[in-house]
């Protein structure tokens, strides 16, 4: 089973990367782009057939390693 963990900076935390990308898009002529936020996506193959277990494990892994909860939020979903 494959899960995806999405990690984004918390609301209010400065996102220098998003800022720079927004600026670059503007220079490229995409005038209608507002805020840009950048996060990480991790796709993980988990050896289980149990959706609930996979999600719970994704949550555990995010808390322990994949996300930095001081500045980041995360979401886990099953993708296949």
């Amino acid at each position, binding site marked *: 089973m494959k899960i995806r963990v999405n990690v984004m900076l918390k609301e209010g935390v400065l996102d220098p*990367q998003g800022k*720079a990308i927004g600026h*670059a898009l503007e220079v490229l002529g995409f005038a209608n782009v507002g805020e840009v936020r*950048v996060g990480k996506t991790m796709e993980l193959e988990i050896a289980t057939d149990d959706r609930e277990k996979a999600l719970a494990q994704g949550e555990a892994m995010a808390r322990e390693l994949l996300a930095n909860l001081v500045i980041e939020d995360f979401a886990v979903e099953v993708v296949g």
Partner: protein
Amino acid sequence: MKAGIVVFPGTNRERDMEQALRLVSGKAPTMLWHRDTSLPDLDLIVLPGGFSFGDYLRSGAMGAHSPILREVRAFAERGGYVLGVCNGFQILTEAQLLPGALLRNAGMRFLSQDGFLRVETQDTAFTRDWAKGDVFRAPLAHGDGNYTASEAELDRLEGEDRVAFRYVCAQGTLDAANRLSNPNGSQRSIAGILSANKRVCGLMPHPENLVDPDLGATDGVPLFSGLVKSLVA
């Protein structure tokens, strides 16, 4: 030799490059700004190291979309000489002036250490002052220097003699699987490559930081002295 150095926001080795070019060629290079839309009369354009646009998104991605890159591309298409070092190499690949891409170092950490390069081809303006097989020291300073390209692309580079430099260990041994020899995990230990016409060269290490005897070593001088010989016409 009339050289120009492109400065992007976040470029930080432009002064190092300026110093090296001045020391070896005896002539001060011209500084170019990323927003420039025309070029002065030049023999060589250098894209120096640094963190153009913070290296945000991908190293070199935003620099490759700067106005001046249109001019650099046209210059290269006219047969001009272009050198990209470190971030400059990354920009050249992002702009597809050179093939492949530079991924995160295999060890996932920034590498700042002496690297040892073996010269793989001789008949180019960039390598003529070395002999093929020469090994020289050049500092590495990068987080994304892990050269990658498709197998077909790599075969083509080798077939066309377009690999300029490879990482080796201090004793000269080539071993792509060994971090001591190939510190960032580059495919086939590739440290620097050339365009099809051999006039565009990109490499990750910093020969410009080893040109001054007062600072300890001159291993990097041949890169610049070779260019001077080729371009002082």
